[in-house]
C-alpha cells in the first residue's frame, strides 16, 4: 500500500500542495482527478520521490526517503506525461532499459518479458522502429511498456508493486485508451496497485476502484466513483453545472459535456 500523509510542496516559492493525504491499496486502481493546476502531477511526483516535500510517503510501510533509488525502483515504476529523447534509440532498446533494474532471470527470459510488454501495449512489430519517429501516443505506450518491464511481477517477495501513471491515456485513441485501462486493471487484479492521473471522467468511472478529486492543492473528495461523481462535486471542483448520469446496466456514472450549463 502507498500512503502519503500531510504532503506539502512548494515549487519556486508557490505553495502547490497543502497537506494532501493519498492512500492507494494493492489490488485497486486509484485515480487522481481534478482541474488543470490542482496539484495532481505534483502529488504523483512527491509520491515517486522526485520533488522535495514535507510530510511522509511510504510504500508497503517503508518510508521512501529511507530507500535507495534501486530499492524504490523494484517497488514502483513511473510513467511520465511525455518523454523526449535526443539519441536514436530503437523501441526495443528503450523497453529493455526497464529490465536493467534489480535481479532478473536469464537473457531469454528478459527477452520474453520485453516482447510481452510491447505486445501488452499493442505495439508488437514496433521493436525495430526508432522512438523519435513514433507518434506521441505510440511513444507514450513504449514508455508504459518500459515501466511495465521494471515491475513485471505485480507481487514480488510477497510485496505488491505499484504503477504510477501520469495521464496514461490522454494522448491515445479510444481503442488504445481501453487497452491501457484494461492493462492497468489487470495489473491490479494480479495483486499490484495503480495510481493514475486521469482527465477522462467517464473512463475513470468505468475503471477506477477509488477516485481522489483534487482542487487547488487539496483533496476535495475521495471514495468510489459512485460517491465522488455527483452534480455537487462537479460544480464545486470544475465550476460548471453538469448532470451526472448512470448507465442503465451496471450503474456506472457518466457525464456528458453537453449537459453543462
Amino acid at each position, binding site marked *: 500500500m502507498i500512503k502519503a500523509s500531510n504532503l506539502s510542496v512548494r515549487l519556486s516559492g508557490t505553495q502547490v500542495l497543502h497537506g494532501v493525504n493519498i492512500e492507494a491499496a494493492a489490488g485497486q486502481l486509484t485515480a487522481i482527478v481534478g482541474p488543470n493546476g490542482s496539484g495532481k502531477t505534483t502529488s504523483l511526483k512527491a509520491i*515517486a520521490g522526485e520533488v522535495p516535500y514535507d510530510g511522509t510517503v511510504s510504500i508497503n510501510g517503508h518510508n521512501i526517503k529511507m530507500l535507495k533509488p534501486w530499492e524504490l525502483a523494484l517497488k514502483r515504476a513511473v510513467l*511520465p506525461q511525455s518523454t*523526449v529523447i535526443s539519441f536514436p534509440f530503437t523501441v526495443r532498446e528503450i523497453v529493455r*532499459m526497464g529490465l536493467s533494474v534489480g535481479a532478473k532471470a536469464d537473457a531469454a527470459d528478459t527477452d520474453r518479458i520485453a*516482447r510481452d510488454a510491447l505486445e501488452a501495449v499493442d505495439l508488437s512489430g514496433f*521493436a525495430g522502429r526508432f522512438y523519435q519517429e513514433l507518434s506521441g501516443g505510440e511513444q507514450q505506450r513504449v514508455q508504459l511498456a518500459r515501466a511495465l518491464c521494471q515491475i513485471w511481477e505485480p507481487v514480488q517477495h510477497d510485496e505488491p508493486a505499484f504503477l504510477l501513471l501520469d495521464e496514461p491515456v490522454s494522448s491515445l485513441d479510444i481503442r488504445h485508451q481501453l487497452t491501457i485501462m484494461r492493462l492497468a486493471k489487470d495489473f491490479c487484479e494480479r495483486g499490484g496497485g495503480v495510481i493514475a492521473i486521469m482527465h477522462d471522467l467517464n473512463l475513470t468511472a468505468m475503471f477506477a476502484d477509488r477516485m481522489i478529486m483534487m482542487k487547488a492543492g487539496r483533496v476535495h473528495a475521495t471514495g468510489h466513483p459512485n460517491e465522488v461523481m455527483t452534480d455537487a462535486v462537479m460544480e464545486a471542483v470544475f465550476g460548471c453545472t453538469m448532470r451526472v448520469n448512470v448507465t442503465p446496466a451496471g450503474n456506472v456514472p457518466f457525464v456528458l459535456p453537453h449537459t453543462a450549463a
Partner: protein
Amino acid sequence: MPRSEMVMGDGRSQSFAARLKSDWHIGDRSRLAQLLILVLIVVAAAMFAASIMTGAADASLSNVLRWLLGMEGAEQALSVRDRIIILDIRLPRAVLGLMVGASLAVSGAVMQGLFRNPLADPGLVGVSSGASLGAVLLIVLGSSFFGPLFAIFGFYALPVAAFVGGLITTLLLYKIATRSGQTSVATMLLAGIALGALAGAVTGVLIFMADDKQLRDLTFWGLGSLAGANWMKILSAGPIILVSLAVVPFLARGLNALTLGEAAAFHMGIPVQRLKNIAIVSVAASTGASVAVSGGIGFVGIVVPHVLRMVIGPDHRYLLPASALLGGTLLIFADMIARTIVPPAELPIGIITAFAGAPFFLWILLRGRSHMGL
C-alpha cells in the same frame, strides 16, 4: 495461461511460432556492436604497429616485435639508432596518441550522455579552454604562486592544474545550462562559447604577462601536438587518464537511463546525483590530462561518438568502449599524417583533426536540422 493472452483485450493471442516470426530481433544492435568492438581492437592494434614502423628510419614489424619481446637474434637486426628512435620516440608517441585519442572520444561521449545532447563536446563547450587556462596559469604564475603545488604533485602538477580548470568550467556549464533536470541546448552551446572566450581572454592576459622563458614553454605546449611525447609525459598524464577511463564502464547503464531524463533515470533506480558527479569529474580529469600533455586537439570527441551511434546505436555499454578504440586509432592515424605529410617538418595534429572534423561537424548540424529541433 500466459500473461500476454490475459492482457490482450480483444482476445487475440499469438502462437509461439508466430511470435518468432515477428520482427522482435530487428532493433537489436547488440550483436553488431560486439562484433564492431572486436574489429576495432584489431584495427587499433594494426594502427599502433603501423605507427611504430612509419617514419624516416626503417624498421620491419617482425624485427621490432622480436626485439621488444626480447627474442634471440633480433638485437642485431636493428641498429642502435633505430632502437632509440623506436623506444624513446615512436613508442611513447603511439602510446600517448592511443591514450589521448581514447580519452578525448570517451569524454565527448560521456559529456553528450550527461547533457543528453549529441552536440556536447569538451572542446566545443569551453571545457578544453578552461583546462588550458589551468595549465597556462601554472606555467606563468607557477614559481611565484604555486610553489607548494609543484612540491606536492611533482610532475603531476600540470595535468592536475588542467584538471581543476576543466572541472570548474564543466561545473559552471552544468549549473548554467541545466534547470530542474532539463538541459537547454542553446544555453549550453552559448554558455560554452562565453566560458571558452572568458578562459581564452584570461589566458591571453597571462601570455601577455609571461617572460621569455615562460613564453617558450607556452608555445611549445600549446601547439596541440603529440610531437613532445616521451615516457615522462605518459607517466604524468597516464594514471589520470586510465583511472577516468576505468570508471566509465560503470556509468554506461546510468547514462542510458539518463537519456530519458533525470526524473526517469531516478524512477528506474539510478542514483542520479552520484552519476552526474562521477561523470563530470571523469570528463574534467581526462580532458585536463589530455590538454596538459598534448594541447588542444579538437573534434575527436564529437565526431567519433557520432559516427559510432550511426552504426551501433546510442547504447553506452557499447558506445563507450567503441569510442575509446576508434578515438585512439584515429588520433594515431592523424599523427602519422601529421609527421609524414610535409617531411621533414611536422604539422600540429590539431590542424589535421580540425580539417577533418570541422566539415563533419557542419554536416551533422545540417543533417540534424530537420529532426533534432536544434
